[in-house]
């Protein structure tokens, strides 16, 4: 399937894009019904999966971080072989995540890991308590997130990873974790909803217990598949890289068509304001990633050009819990949504 997808051209994908978008939208809304007050997070997970950007969920225990990822996986119908999940601790060894060393190969002098069923061969990965890992694992993770590759006996090999979700109770300030923190362009607070949705929470919780007792997974409806996400990702990538010729022969880039000048200016002003007033700095690398994410969100949620509402995505740019809280509060004011 993957190879068939790789051979598809932009016109072919364009024909399918409407149907793809429709399925993914139905998927996210359907999945949202099984949670209370988490629709924004599910939307964000979909955007992150479409853009192949890792997403970090930040929140105290019991705020459905793991549950979101597990149901997302069930709903996409990802098989055991394609899914890898691990809770990291200070004592987790690289072999637990990357696969054990093959002793037979080692006797032959080769340093080969048996990676089947581990992170390198999984298309969707969920790492809980990601900042608690030790430096050996951190280095491997950075390489995998950055370059989508790992090493077997010194030879770089591609990983199968398509979607990476991670979770943490807190975002540590330690400098040796800064690199990993920075790789997660998107960080989302996962907060308790009990105060605002107390009764709904009890109802949903009871229903979920029943499903669990009966061994049912009604959220695994098969509305959309991993392949749909991959196809949509390829469509968006090709679309963003394409140039067109305008009516007067001028070259039209993606931004000319999908990111109006006024929005681009507003985008710049928002980033400048956050930097000057609150010290929230966005690196050049993140700006490019943000462009792709904004485009992806715009395509998914309203099918066309970037709109002011898409800038809500900037609320997930913070590097610390305090920054995330500040952005959550401030962005709607800046965008005029709080009026």
């Amino acid at each position, binding site marked *: 399937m993957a190879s068939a997808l790789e051979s598809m051209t932009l016109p072919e994908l364009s024909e399918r894009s409407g149907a793809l978008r429709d399925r993914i939208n139905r998927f996210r809304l359907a999945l949202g019904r099984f949670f209370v007050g988490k629709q924004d997070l599910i939307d964000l997970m979909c955007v992150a999966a479409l853009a192949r950007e890792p997403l970090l969920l930040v929140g105290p225990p019991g705020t459905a971080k793991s549950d979101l990822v597990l149901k997302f996986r069930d709903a996409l119908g990802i098989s055991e072989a394609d899914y890898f999940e691990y809770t990291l601790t200070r004592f987790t060894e690289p072999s637990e995540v990357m696969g054990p060393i093959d002793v037979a190969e080692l006797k032959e002098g080769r340093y080969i890991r048996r990676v089947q069923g581990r992170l390198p061969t999984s298309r969707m990965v969920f790492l809980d308590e990601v900042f608690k890992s030790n430096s050996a694992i951190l280095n491997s993770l950075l390489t995998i997130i950055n370059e989508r590759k790992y090493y077997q006996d010194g030879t770089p090999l591609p990983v199968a990873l398509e979607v990476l979700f991670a979770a943490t109770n807190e975002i540590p300030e330690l400098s040796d974790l800064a690199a990993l923190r920075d790789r997660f362009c998107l960080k989302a607070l996962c907060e308790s909803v009990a105060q605002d949705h107390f009764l709904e929470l009890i109802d949903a919780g009871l229903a979920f217990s029943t499903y669990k007792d009966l061994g049912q997974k009604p959220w695994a409806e098969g509305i959309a598949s991993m392949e749909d996400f991959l196809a949509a990702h390829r469509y968006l990538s090709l679309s963003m890289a394409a140039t067109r010729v305008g009516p007067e022969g001028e070259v039209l880039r993606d931004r000319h068509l999908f990111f109006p000048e006024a929005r681009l200016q*507003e985008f710049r002003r928002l980033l400048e*304001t956050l930097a000057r007033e609150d010290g929230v700095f966005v690196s050049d690398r993140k700006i490019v990633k943000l462009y792709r994410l904004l485009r992806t969100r715009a395509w998914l949620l309203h099918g066309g050009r970037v709109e002011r509402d898409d800038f809500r995505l900037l609320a997930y740019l913070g590097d610390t819990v305090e920054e995330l809280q500040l952005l959550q509060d401030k962005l709607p004011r800046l965008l005029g949504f709080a009026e």
Partner: protein
Amino acid sequence: MRSWLAPDAAFVEAVLRRGGLPDALTGAGLRWARSEEGLRLMPSRSVDERRLLELGLRPGPALVESESKEASCWAELVPCEPGPPPELPVPQALFRVSQDGLTTFVKRLLHLGCTDQSLLVLSDGTALVRAVEPPYFSLISEAQVYLPAAPFVWVQWGLRHPLAEVLRPSAGASVLIADAGWLHVPDGPFQELAASLELAPVAKVSIAARPPPRIEVRLQLEPSSAPAPDALWVLRQDGASTVERLAAELPSAALEDLEFFVAEDGLVMVRGSRRAPAQPALELPGAEVYAAHPRLERLFLPVGTEVAPPLRLTQLRDALAPDPEQLSLLVPQSEARPTPFRVQTVADDAFRPLSEWVDYVAAGEPEAMEGWKRSLQFEFQPFVRAQTWAEAEEAQPSSRRSWRRQAEARPEPEPDPEPEAAPARAALPSPPRGPALEAVLTELTPASVRAVEQRLLEGETSHPAEDWFSLVGAYLDAGRESEAGLALGHGLLATPRADRSERARAWVERAELAPLGADPEPVRLRWAVFELLAGREDDLPLLRTRTEGLDTRSFWLLWDAVARREDDALARARAVDDVVERLRGSLAPRDVPAFVRTEGGGQGLAADALAAALAEARETHFATRRQRSPLEAPEGLTQGYVELGFAWGFGRLGALGEARAALRSSEARFGTAAEGPVHAFARAALLERIAAAQAGAGAGRLSEPLERAYAELARMERYVVDRLAEASVAIGLRSEADAFARFGSKGLEWPEDLRPASLLSVLDACLDDAFPEPEEVLEALHLARLLPPHHLADRLDGLGRACGALEGPAKARGLASVLRLADAVDAPVANLVRDLAELLGADEPSGAKVVFELAPLLERRGAAAEVRAALKEGLHREALPLEHRLVMASAAGALGETEASHRWASDALGLAAATGTPMATRLQLARVLLRGLGRSSPELAVAAVRRLQAELLPQVTDSGSTNTHFCRALIHFAESVVVGLATPDGLLGPRARRFLDAEEHTLRQAILAEAD
């Protein structure tokens, strides 16, 4: 009419700057066009052609209207240039918006937290919105934004105009300068937004009011966290006989300090006389013991209790002690907690001196006359020592005080039937140790104590150590252990080190101390240091952990003893470091003997007045309604911090009852909402500061756990805490007093090898560099501080020169450090003072801040005149920001130039109170103003606080960016009030200040010399 050719716009700018043409011409409109040769100008008015030719303009044909443009004046031909990004927050901005979009725009600004807006509608269908501290997003989002460049001259955001500062728009007009052209608009009147708002009607439901029922609150007694000393004893049974025994046992001098009252039912009360130097410590079996309320001396509570709920002083007075002629006793009615009570009153003048007791009882009773005779026999008790020191050691301890064994432990001499025939002096056995003790014990009377105190205060003593020791004995006899300890610290430090142990041993034995206990009071801790000096080392582990409460002399004596005992050079170096830190800038009341504090009018009165003013300011603060910005953090949290600030202020003034009340109120205001690391750290740090203030300690470093907690805060949390620390003097998080603290904060480590030779080689290497880097200079200053001062005498010039590599505040602090070092070794300071005076002409006020801090040193070293002259010159500079000017005026005030100081203070007060001034400037002015006044003129500080609370406080709110933890502006303002009123310096008379300054100098020299 013809045109005139100018080569380019730069030429026009030069002509205008030179002022070669009349304003009537250059300020009038003209037509102009650009040609290949340059700019063609055709003025609308007649011109002096000869003058134009002289200036280099060449004549040409008249301009055609269709090929030229119009300009409002010549300066408009000079184009704008890109300007630097402005500092945030921008004080004011002018937005030009269409009238259609005005409502939306104003609403948007309000939602972004900008409430200070005023409007001016123009005749061309647009409107001007003048906004104070507008949000950054609006500045970069709107098309026509102008910032003030000069009076009535506004330049478009992002640009600057070369001539903006010299433009003078016509009367009643402002000019808005933009790339697209200039706009001349009326300069007002702007209408406040509040007056322009038309609020949508809201359905009203009237609720009839009725007078609220009176709420009765039953007052009760609760255990107090800081018990006051015993002050009044009530004997309900056998009062007469108990007091008779007391009279028989006490020395006559002590008897004169007591007063008594006898009721008709036999109840007897005893209290200390108002004339007594200190409260007596009595042990009366069966007596109810009462303590005076710390702020209302005619109200007596059972010792160790306080009234609950806490009341304001006026309420407490009205409810429980309304009559100034009557004493009120709160008599417990049960054992329950909290304890109900009833009020018993007794006329204040019903108390009589206890020395009249015998007359009272003896009327018609011959037996009672015997008692009178017996009491006479004890009159010589203070002068008699009929036992050896070894015997005294074996004497039974008394329970009179918790930590000091008392006089009863010493067997009293047998009554001498003929006392006059046996002079006490002759009977005095010499103590085996401490030869000076004998003299001390024999000669002190209240008058002679006062004489010794005056001698010390005037600096006229030739034997300071002996004078201090003589005071120790007198204070111990009077039961003033705290003062005795302070005096002993002075005496020991003035004694050669070799003799200290012996002298300390003699006095420790004389004081007859009880064991230290697990949680000793600061007064007892001080004596524990003397015990250590005397060779008793059992309490050293506890002492090491309790140094915060020690006065500076005891602190040094402790660490010096420890360093010598353990041969630990690092401990001594750190002790020097800490002592110098303690001595810097702020005055610590715990170091000041009572006779100094009460010099010149009496500290009690002044402190009371300031504490009352602070209490009034606190009440006003919480009663004032403010216009809160929608972005301001929840008010409860902010006011919790404000209460902590007030508690700190009360602590500094010694008003412990008020401090406790403020602390309790802060807890209530924080409630459960103040969660998270920021609040946890900030509150803990403030509580530590408050405890230190109550103990009379200055603002040194935070304790180690808090320093660690600060370092462990996340980046954003630390940012929030730092923002609080910028506003809060009380939290005192960052010491900016000199380069060392800053250097320390950069992670400078103590050198491994602290031997002078090693330190000197590193220091010399730093100083050998002809063009040192600033970091090298800071390191050199740090090393200099670790060295014994006499090694530095030859290097001070080098250090002073090296400071030249620093700039701005770093240079000022560096010079201050070297000045202090030079002062410590009595080295010349002329060059350093000259460099400091030069700094006073800089564009920032750090030099003046240093002068403010070092004023006593400069006076002492005869350098005040030079610095005063530089300050006066600096004050006359034009275009000096008022805040800078105010800092300089404060420095001038500290050097005795009160006239200039008060004149600028008056201007600053007007500006801080004025609504047109941006809030950030107003707050900063208030801080600088009150800090200066608090030190130089407490009366003016009180007046300034009242005005600022009336005119500035109602508008104080945060309007910059979102802050979820507290309203920084409000904390800033409230602490400015506290700083203005709670300055311990304000309590001292001039003679006491001179004494303390000399003391500080002497102490610094002594310690630095001993550290060698």
